[in-house]
């Protein structure tokens, strides 16, 4: 528990060790679900829930988990939470469940979840693991929110489904490429570049 405090975990997760532009984890889902803001936000909410709780559970069980099967145990715990989200979405928000399709299930393979379990939860107390998971997922959320806003506005002229002034008018020729997979690569690369430059400048 040495050197760990609330503020440090917060800044680490959101900025100095941001899962997207520093650890470069969870890129697959970053590319896949960021063309509509609303889908992205629901996806991020699912991720926040999964990362925090699975990190918490892994940390709580860490003294009983045999080292040689810890990965299996982690996967099992992650899968449990993801399936619960999937079931809840299907039952209470069928439209969103339709929109996200297979992506909810793919949270299981999101590297951030496993990454945080391995890097922090397995060797820390449940409280620290929970905070660490939560802030990392939040760091992921804020980058994804940025990317999806840019993509949706440029590509479709809307923000979370609401038509934007200028961008939804005929004066704006919609950049279809933004909502297609290649658009995600461009925007993600720009954002990583921008964030890293700011970070490096600060260090100097």
């Amino acid at each position, binding site marked *: 528990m040495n050197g760990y405090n609330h503020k440090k975990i917060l800044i680490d997760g959101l900025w100095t060790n941001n899962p997207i532009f520093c650890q470069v984890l969870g890129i697959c889902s970053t590319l896949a*679900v960021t*063309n*509509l803001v609303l*889908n992205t936000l629901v996806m991020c909410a699912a991720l926040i829930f999964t990362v925090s709780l699975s990190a918490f559970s892994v940390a709580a069980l860490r003294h*009983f*988990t*045999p080292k*040689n*099967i810890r990965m*299996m*145990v982690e996967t*099992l*715990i992650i*899968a*449990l939470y993801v*399936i*619960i989200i999937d*079931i*809840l979405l*299907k*039952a*209470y928000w*069928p439209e969103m469940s*339709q*929109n996200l*399709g*297979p992506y909810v299930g793919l949270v299981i393979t999101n590297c951030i979840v496993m990454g945080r379990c391995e890097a922090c939860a397995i060797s820390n107390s449940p409280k620290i693991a929970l905070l660490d998971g939560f802030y990392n997922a939040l760091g992921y959320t804020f980058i994804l929110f940025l990317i999806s806003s840019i993509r*949706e506005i440029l*590509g*479709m002229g809307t923000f979370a489904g609401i038509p934007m002034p200028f961008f939804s008018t005929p004066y704006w020729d919609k950049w*279809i490429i933004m*909502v*297609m997979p290649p658009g995600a690569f461009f925007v993600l690369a720009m954002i990583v570049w921008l964030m890293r430059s700011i970070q490096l400048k600060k260090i100097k």
Partner: protein
Amino acid sequence: MKIIDLKIYPVIYIFILMFIASSIIIGAAKFTEKNVKMNEKIAIGKSVIQVLPEIYKKNMTNAEIHKVFNEKVKKANIHNTYYYFTENQSYAIPIEGKGFWAPIKGFIGIEQDKKTISGISFYEQNETPGLGAEIMKENFRRQFNGKKLSADGKINFKRKGEKLSEHDIEAITGATQTSTRLEKIINNSIKEWLKNISN
């Protein structure tokens, strides 16, 4: 010797954990089963009444959809396919087939004259969000209203910018695969239906 040092301990451990996890999931699935089934039913009912003329209103609640569907829509079984229709003999024809990623399922409504389309809707699809999934949007679906089947019973998809006749629909830019597949799905279903009702 403590239990944690036993060779068999990892096996026991994972077994217990698995047992707990599966119980939770089975419990959750059982608990929401009724809701999920109801959602599916409502989705199909909504899809049907959306394509039949003049019985769908915007912002209908699930209960209203259920009621209208049960009272006004009849079901007919012709050649093992179910068609839904109203008293004035407008048909809701099921359309189903392979989309780009996953099956597309929905209904297309055809009026009494067996030519005029009264609407189209989908209750299952998994096309690319923002591109193929635009088929769900009102803007795309509205194009079908009032369009007529061509002499050989078809609806054609045209690229953006091409001249549209009364048998044509503007395809979605950037979603060529979804558009071509959907065109095929619709035309196959209509062909099947025309064949079935003529016998």
